[in-house]
């Protein structure tokens, strides 16, 4: 079959690889009908997430039709079912899964030993997302193996299109969780750093959850335009001082809730801090560039919530602990516990209250995945979200 493979820093290739097989009794094999390139795939592409191996199949946002089930899969699933696959692999039986912390599943990462060394405790397996998260083959391919299928996939009826439900695998629940963690109250002003696809969904979710004003912060004008078209206020950090603009927009209070939808490869206007982070990264004494996170903490109103859904991989420097502690801020974070949100979000899609298709700007065949990565990474051709069709 054809699959998008990581072949080294900044290169992906579509290669011929063997078809997937059943390795565990509750596996299912899915014929992928739609898959997408995610912002966090760019961290893998750029080599900022450790433990990638040449030849790894990329992709953790995918859906398709079941073509084979292992002998242990329960009756809930059958060949022919149409399913969306959440990116974290949950077992459904460990204490974390019982607590609905699916991305912290204790059983699905065969390389838990490595994950534990970096994070203190291991995290769940994730498709196509380095060997730190288990070394599972990804879904940017014609076929994919789904692990513990009956505990993971969401079955989808024929009424909705792939494009309407595909993002239930990751970016829509991720954006939603970013807003949900903010504990939004009526009248809240919510600022979102990053107007990429996850940021856009965080904004939509914040509004659904009752935010009165939503502010988008980015430097790409086309992304800000996309947010403005939804009625959100925008700040371009390249020509505006973000903190002053936020104070201006909130009568001096600062946003009640702040969402970091950027993560470890933040860029920004203030060059000296950026230079500091890049220098520390170059000598590997800092792995992430936490600029957006620092700015969110410093901008948030006292007693507010900073919610982090941007991906961080390792260690950060110059964390504003003083602001966090002295101003009674709440910091919440998490790799999305997708399973928790799939059904409620499916309902919102069916009711027309959220339209996931609005972020799609590019549709390409799987064979053109490298072009898709180039468009998305380099923000060419006003690229917001790429969907690939095998």
């Amino acid at each position, binding site marked *: 079959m054809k699959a998008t493979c990581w072949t080294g820093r900044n290169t992906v290739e579509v290669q011929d690889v063997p078809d997937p097989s059943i390795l565990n009794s509750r596996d299912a094999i899915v014929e992928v009908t739609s898959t997408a390139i995610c912002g966090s795939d760019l961290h893998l592409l750029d080599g900022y997430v450790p433990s990638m191996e040449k030849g790894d199949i990329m992709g953790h946002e995918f859906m398709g039709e079941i073509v084979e089930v292992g002998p242990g899969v329960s009756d809930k699933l059958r060949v022919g079912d149409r399913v969306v696959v959440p990116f974290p692999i949950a077992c459904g039986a460990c204490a974390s899964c019982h607590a609905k912390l699916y991305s912290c599943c204790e059983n699905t990462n065969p390389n838990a030993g490595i994950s534990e060394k970096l994070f203190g405790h291991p995290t769940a397996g994730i498709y196509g997302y380095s060997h730190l998260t288990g070394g599972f*083959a990804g879904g940017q391919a014609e076929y994919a193996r789904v692990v513990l299928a009956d505990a993971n996939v969401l079955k989808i009826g024929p009424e909705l299109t792939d494009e309407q439900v595909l993002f239930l695998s990751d970016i829509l629940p991720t954006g939603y969780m970013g807003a949900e963690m903010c504990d939004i109250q009526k009248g809240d002003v919510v600022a979102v750093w990053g107007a990429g696809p996850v940021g856009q969904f965080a904004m939509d979710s914040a509004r659904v959850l009752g935010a009165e004003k939503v502010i988008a912060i980015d430097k790409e004008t086309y992304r800000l335009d996309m947010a403005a078209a939804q009625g959100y206020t925008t700040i371009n950090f390249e020509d505006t001082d973000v903190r002053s603009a936020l104070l201006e927009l909130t009568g001096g209070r600062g946003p009640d809730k702040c969402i970091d939808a950027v993560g470890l490869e933040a860029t920004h206007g203030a060059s000296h801090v950026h230079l500091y982070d890049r220098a520390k990264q170059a000598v590997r004494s800092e792995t992430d560039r936490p600029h957006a996170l620092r700015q969110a903490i410093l901008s948030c109103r006292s007693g507010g919530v900073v919610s982090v859904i941007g991906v961080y991989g390792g260690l950060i420097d110059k964390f504003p602990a003083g602001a966090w502690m002295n101003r009674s801020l709440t910091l919440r974070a998490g790799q999305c516990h997708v399973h928790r949100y799939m059904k409620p979000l499916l309902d919102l899609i069916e009711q027309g209250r959220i339209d996931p298709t609005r972020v799609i700007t590019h549709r390409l065949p799987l064979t053109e995945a490298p072009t898709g990565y180039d468009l998305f990474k380099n923000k060419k051709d006003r690229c917001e979200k790429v969907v690939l069709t095998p």
Partner: protein
Amino acid sequence: MKTDTRSTSRLRHDPLVRGLGWASALLGVPQAAAPAGFARAVGVDGTSRHRSATTLVGLRELAAATGLLGRPHPAWLWGRVGGDLMDLTMLIRALRNHDGRGRGRTVAATAAVTAITATDVYAAVTRTRRSTPMELTAATTVTRPPDEVYALWKDLKRLPDFMAHLDEVRVTGPGTSHWRASAPFGTTVEWDAETTQDDPGRLLAWRSVDGADIDNSGEVRFEPAPGGRGTEIRVTLRYDLPGGALGKAAARYFGEEPHQQLDDDLRRFKQIVEIGEVVRSEGAPGGKRARGEFPQHPARPLTEDELKEALA
């Protein structure tokens, strides 16, 4: 994890170790105090280069003497072996560039150093190649009740399903069993074990009987976790690792860090208890074979041959 190499007190009374310590002192004093004279005595002229080299060799001997007589440790013996090799190298160079005067003395010195080297190697190997008693502990919590978890562990023939190094456990009688495990460098070790304590739902303990390739014992305790969280499992393993520190370093080099092994074994046990089998990924298709986890297979489907091997 506790480790203990051969104890200092035993080495302190070891005649060979003390003899080598005194030999170092006797050689080191004249070398450091009168380098020129010493150099002439071994048939090398007293140029400043030879003098300073001799002084340094003397200081090294004095350091070895202090170590071996004061705080003896096999590392000092290996240090002596390293020093001997340096001395031999220098003497062989001296022989090659010799002007002929005192060549006999240099030849004699080389022969003497060769004999000393052999003694040092013998001392270092025999004083290092002791077994290392080792104790490993690990703990995990599973979401099932103690009775159920105990019953699964009690089914000894299933232990190889999650203990990476066990090839086979065979029950040979009431309370006795035969174990076979793989060891570094492709070797296999076997032993008979007996159950020493069996408290259903709470505790299992066992130890190897006389004649085991590696003497070992262990116990696993099952306790209800607070708040109805299931069962806390605590494992303790004790064994005498052959090859001492050297064996351990070699094992670690081949990815056999014992504590990590036990942690991973328990993780796999948890998987079996909670979801019924060990999870395999394309990157780690063997699932339980810890040694096969690194280097990883790329995260892409296996070829038919790789698949056969992984599922075998």
